[in-house]
């Protein structure tokens, strides 16, 4: 079959040629019983030829390579899925709306699922908040970012014969006690730390740095700095004691305590220590006691930090 030639207006006197017949007059919609009949009749279809098959009631167009159903794949209707609303679904122009966005009322809102196929709105947080999971692990929420640093729980000046820091919150990971400028009332006095004001016998032990050992005993009633004490006039020393996992109630307690004192004999020199300490009680640490080994404090400061 010839290819279609388009459209022509014949006028009086025109000669109707075979080419005109095939290119214009025969370019209508050919009706066949089925595709086989079409194939038999039209052995060389041309792009743009049209046919109607009675057995399937389909209109097909030859695309240059094969016969394809006219309108194949066209939508006949649009229906609403989850979170979608549709108006005029059968056309001619449906309107499709994402109904989830109707939940958004404010800039910064976010949507999250509350159940299968269900969403809810979470309003924006405040400045510097971070998105986290709520305590029930059921939904996201905005929360203040954890500082991750040191929170001062108590700070003051060393005086009296003992300083007892009480009421320590258990909501931190570790405790850090920093003692600055310790001034002993008695030249050369060291420092002691006691836990929970527990002066019971055989509860405290300490080991020198880098040491290890087995079958160790608890000969002490406190933790003590491990070197000659502090001068009582030049008080530039500092120490740092970290008590690990202090709030747990299942293990004995452990600490690292390091620092230096100004040498009481030669104040241009210093004495230092890095020791490991153990306290053989399992109760949470709620109290830290600071004591000079003799006399009373003459000065210095203490700060107890909670460490996240």
């Amino acid at each position, binding site marked *: 079959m010839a290819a279609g030639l388009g459209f022509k207006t014949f006028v009086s006197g025109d000669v109707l040629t075979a080419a005109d017949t095939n290119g214009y007059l025969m370019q209508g919609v050919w009706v066949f019983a089925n595709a086989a009949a079409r194939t038999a009749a039209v052995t060389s279809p041309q792009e743009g030829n049209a046919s109607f098959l009675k057995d399937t009631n389909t209109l097909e167009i030859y695309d240059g390579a094969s016969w394809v159903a006219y309108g194949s794949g066209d939508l006949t209707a649009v229906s609403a899925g989850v979170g979608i609303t549709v108006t005029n679904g059968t056309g001619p122009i449906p309107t499709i709306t994402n109904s989830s966005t109707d939940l958004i009322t404010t800039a910064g809102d976010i949507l999250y699922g509350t159940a299968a196929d269900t969403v809810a709105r979470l309003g924006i947080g405040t400045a510097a908040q971070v998105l986290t999971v709520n305590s029930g692990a059921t939904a996201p929420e905005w929360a203040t970012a954890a500082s991750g640093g040191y929170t001062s729980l*108590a700070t003051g000046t060393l*005086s*009296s*014969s*003992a300083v007892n820091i009480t*009421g320590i919150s258990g909501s931190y990971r570790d405790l850090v006690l920093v003692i600055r400028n310790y001034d002993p009332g008695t030249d050369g006095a060291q420092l002691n730390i006691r836990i929970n004001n527990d002066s019971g016998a055989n509860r405290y032990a300490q080991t020198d740095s880098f040491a290890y050992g087995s079958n160790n005993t608890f000969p002490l*009633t406190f933790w003590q700095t491990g070197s000659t004490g502090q001068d009582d006039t030049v008080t530039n020393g500092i120490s740092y004691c970290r008590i690990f996992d202090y709030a747990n109630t299942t293990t004995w307690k452990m600490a690292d305590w390091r620092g230096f004192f100004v040498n009481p004999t030669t104040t241009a020199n210093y004495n230092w220590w890095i020791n490991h300490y153990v306290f053989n009680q399992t109760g949470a640490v709620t109290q830290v006691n600071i*004591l000079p080994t003799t006399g009373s404090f003459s000065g210095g400061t203490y700060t107890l930090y909670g460490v996240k």
Partner: protein
Amino acid sequence: MTEKTVIFHDAQTGEVIEREMTAGEIAIYEKDLLDRQELLAAKQKAKTEAEAKRTALLEKLGITEEEAKLLLG
């Protein structure tokens, strides 16, 4: 004799109270002193014994401490 005092610093409330030590606290304080003296004495004893052993060994070897350091260095 000066009264011994103790400070209580409540980390929850920030309240700081200084008061005289009770008899029980003074007893503990005094015991701490004794414990410390025993601790220092034990340390001193261990140190003295170690020094004596080192001196005896140096004499036995017939070398000075500086020469021993050279050998071990």
